[in-house]
């Protein structure tokens, strides 16, 4: 079965530190890849996505992610975090195959706490 793994469950950083959150998926075919963010008390928001093309994608709020097909990875990065980045981050995948209904398969999430 397809699955998504996020390696870090809880990350604590100081402001201005760099961030990298790991994400790996298990599916050998074509995928659409996503990072969603959930701020406290709010809904899931799309941070960035990869469908095709340049494997380095840029999202909102200075986030970027790199798709490495050979490693089945889609790691999220930000060079300098802010206190307002405190949130839970979810990696998600849509496997693309015939008859697919585009359900998202989520990782377990990473809770990021940024200390001022």
């Amino acid at each position: 079965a397809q699955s998504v793994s996020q390696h870090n469950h809880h990350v604590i950083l100081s402001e201005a530190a760099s961030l990298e959150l790991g994400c790996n998926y298990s599916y050998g075919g074509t995928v659409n890849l996503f990072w969603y963010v959930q701020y406290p008390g709010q809904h899931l928001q799309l941070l960035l996505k990869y469908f095709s093309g340049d494997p380095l994608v840029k999202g909102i709020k200075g986030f970027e992610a790199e798709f490495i097909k050979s490693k089945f990875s889609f790691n999220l990065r930000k060079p300098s975090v802010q206190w307002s980045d405190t949130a839970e981050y979810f990696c998600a995948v849509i496997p693309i195959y015939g008859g697919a209904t585009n359900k998202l398969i989520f990782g377990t999430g990473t809770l990021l706490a940024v200390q001022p």
Partner: protein
Amino acid sequence: EPEVTQTPSHQVTQMGQEVILRCVPISNHLYFYWYRQILGQKVEFLVSFYNNEISEKSEIFDDQFSVERPDGSNFTLKIRSTKLEDSAMYFCASIPFTGKNIQYFGAGTRLSVL
């Protein structure tokens, strides 16, 4: 920006009772989804819905669950006889068509079964 709206934000119910969770997807969207997140666990797919019928459902979505789009705007998830393990955050999502795989989520309904 258009939003997916879910009501109520928090539902408390007794075990064995029926609950209906409501969602109003974005108006021109055609595909609808329910997901749930048990506290401390990952967000899990429950069901997808298109053209007034279920297009895919997970193993979690057993006979206790049903979905409906009763009036062309609301999209509901019904749990017939709630169990303690149904306590979770339930998220509704929608997309306009399959060629645009960006799902827009509601804020969720927290269901507490006592």
